């Protein structure tokens, strides 16, 4: 089939090679450490993380400057036969967020998985650094991919790196958690593949930009969309497919929990958004959007209530992830724009993405802070946290700042995100989501203050099991401050997040 008119825009742009670099850099790290025998893996990883951050900044500024998509046509084969990598505003922001968070996690993990000079690398630390690189590459490929099958491979790369990270320490409980995670992920990936088979069979392409013009509301498209969505929901751990998440995220070592909770679950979420908003925009009817929103509402209520009932800190943070994922799904009913209200849709769009970015930073800070507290105390039982506020003040402050973002208290990224989503519910006249969001905010306040209340309590008999270096505390605080600084984003639809989305006219909130 000849490429039709819409594909003529597909030419590799000047900075397109950056996209390849973002995906290939981590793979180079893995290969290098294999070739060099793993002795240098920590140093290679940290060096590549720095280079990767520069690449991410370059991609971000290139998209910002040109105000256009960054495109790379792999091997110069045009879609539908070839594969395109595209970076729009969202992808660029996502790649930057990924790079910053993975770098922070890498620096944090040095004391746990680092190696002293001259010593041979242990099996678990070799695995940790390799898996971290694998997750980083997979996430970048998910953010930049533009072909449904290519995205499938990226998602599998992400899953195969994420699952072993859960049981990198090899404890019995974590192996069970990893196995359960893997089985959910298997169902998810095969349903997604079945959906993309149906799409290819019906429309003859898997390129998202081409599909947008070809997909019509008909049974084949409906079936494919349903299969792919359910598969991806299992990987995103949206209620009621969340059962694997708490043991997996709470069982992993702290840096692993942080990357899993902050970034990995978002990978499959991005794909759901791409499918419904980019590949099949005509299919997102009122009922479908309301259904996804309702699952999100269920996740917020269920996750928050269960978080309140946890006795262990890491499990509490994991249940709070389930709740915060719920907010993301409000983007479907609110930004679908079938009410014909451009303003509400664009506010919801920005708010939803801001929620994703601010939750990524806040949850990283929270899991790392929880990890430091557990390391210092030798346990993470919430009831026995008393006195930790005096011993590790910076860590507890970081935990509290991250909590502000989860609750949606100003000034924080979470506040701006939730405020924009709330405004969108008012503009779109869908008040029922506003009620859920307010209850969710109160419940989040409940569980954050439950932890802070205990942590700030007095306990003169507290003895720390291990000293915590001040640098790691400051690192966690810095990540928490990133979540807060996202709150300085002006309260209006962001033009940047609309780059590459011509149909979404961003109207300023005057």
């Amino acid at each position, binding site marked *: 089939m000849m490429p039709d008119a819409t594909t003529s825009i597909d030419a590799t742009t000047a900075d397109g090679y950056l996209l390849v670099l973002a995906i290939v850099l981590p793979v180079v790290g893995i290969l290098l450490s294999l070739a060099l025998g793993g002795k240098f893996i920590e140093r290679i990883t940290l060096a590549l993380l720095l280079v990767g951050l520069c690449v991410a900044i370059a991609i971000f500024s290139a998209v910002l400057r040109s105000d256009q998509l960054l495109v790379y046509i792999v091997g110069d084969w045009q879609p539908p036969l070839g594969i395109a990598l595209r970076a729009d505003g969202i992808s660029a922001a996502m790649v930057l967020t990924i790079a910053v968070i993975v770098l922070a996690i890498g620096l944090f993990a040095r004391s746990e998985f680092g190696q002293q000079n001259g010593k041979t690398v242990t099996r678990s630390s070799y695995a940790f650094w390799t898996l971290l690189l694998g997750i980083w590459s997979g996430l970048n490929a998910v953010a930049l991919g533009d072909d449904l099958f290519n995205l499938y491979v990226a998602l599998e790369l992400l899953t195969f790196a994420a699952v072993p990270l859960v*049981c990198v320490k090899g404890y019995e409980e974590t192996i*069970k958690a990893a196995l*359960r995670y893997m*089985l959910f992920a298997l*169902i998810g*990936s095969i349903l997604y593949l079945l959906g993309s088979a149906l799409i290819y069979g*019906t429309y003859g392409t898997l390129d998202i930009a081409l599909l947008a013009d070809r997909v019509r509301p008909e049974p084949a498209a409906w079936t494919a969309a349903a299969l792919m969505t359910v598969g991806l929901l299992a990987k995103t751990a949206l209620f009621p497919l969340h059962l694997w998440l708490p043991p997996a995220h709470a069982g992993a070592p702290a840096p692993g929990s942080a990357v899993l909770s902050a970034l990995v679950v978002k990978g499959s979420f991005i794909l759901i958004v791409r499918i419904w908003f980019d590949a099949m925009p005509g299919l997102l009817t009122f009922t479908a959007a309301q259904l996804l929103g309702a699952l999100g509402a269920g996740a917020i209520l269920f996750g928050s209530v269960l978080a309140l009932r946890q006795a262990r800190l890491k499990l509490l943070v994991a249940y709070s992830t389930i709740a915060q994922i719920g907010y993301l799904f409000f983007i479907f009913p609110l930004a679908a724009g079938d009410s014909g209200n451009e303003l509400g849709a664009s506010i919801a769009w920005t708010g939803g993405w801001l929620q994703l970015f601010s939750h990524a930073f806040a949850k990283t800070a929270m899991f790392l802070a929880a990890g430091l507290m557990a390391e210092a105390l030798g346990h993470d039982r919430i009831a026995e946290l008393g006195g930790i506020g005096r011993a590790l003040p910076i860590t507890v402050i970081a935990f509290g700042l991250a909590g502000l973002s989860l609750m949606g208290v100003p000034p924080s990224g979470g506040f701006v995100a939730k405020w924009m989503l709330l405004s969108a519910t008012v503009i779109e006249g869908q008040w029922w989501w506003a009620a859920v969001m307010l209850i969710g905010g109160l419940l989040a306040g409940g569980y954050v203050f439950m932890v802070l209340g205990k942590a700030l309590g007095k306990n003169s008999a507290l003895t720390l099991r291990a000293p915590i270096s001040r640098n790691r505390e400051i690192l966690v605080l810095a990540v928490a401050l990133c979540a807060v600084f996202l709150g300085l984003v002006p309260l209006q639809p962001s033009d940047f997040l609309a780059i590459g989305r011509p149909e979404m006219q961003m109207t300023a909130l005057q």
Partner: protein
Amino acid sequence: MNSAALFGYCGAVLVGLGLYGLITRPEVLRKILAFNVLGSGVFLLFGVFARRGAAAGLGADPVPQALVITGIVVAFSATALVVALLVRLNKETGQVIITSDDPEESGKQGVLP
């Protein structure tokens, strides 16, 4: 019924069988086997779409065949990873199923659309 339709129905039956096994069987090894049956069904469907040449109008479309090869590699890696985890679980606990204190099976059934 032409051959493409016949293979299509076979693929659909395999998908159904695999999904049923994956959801209802508690033993991890059986789940893995069911996953592979399900995967074979999906690959067969790709083959059918290649035969129909939906995209190119040719006798056989090469793209789905390339996709199937990649899909097989992915399914193989997934199987290897689960088997490795299962072997480790069996070594640690002597179990072949994931005993759980939470209602895992009810969650699996929730996977059905």
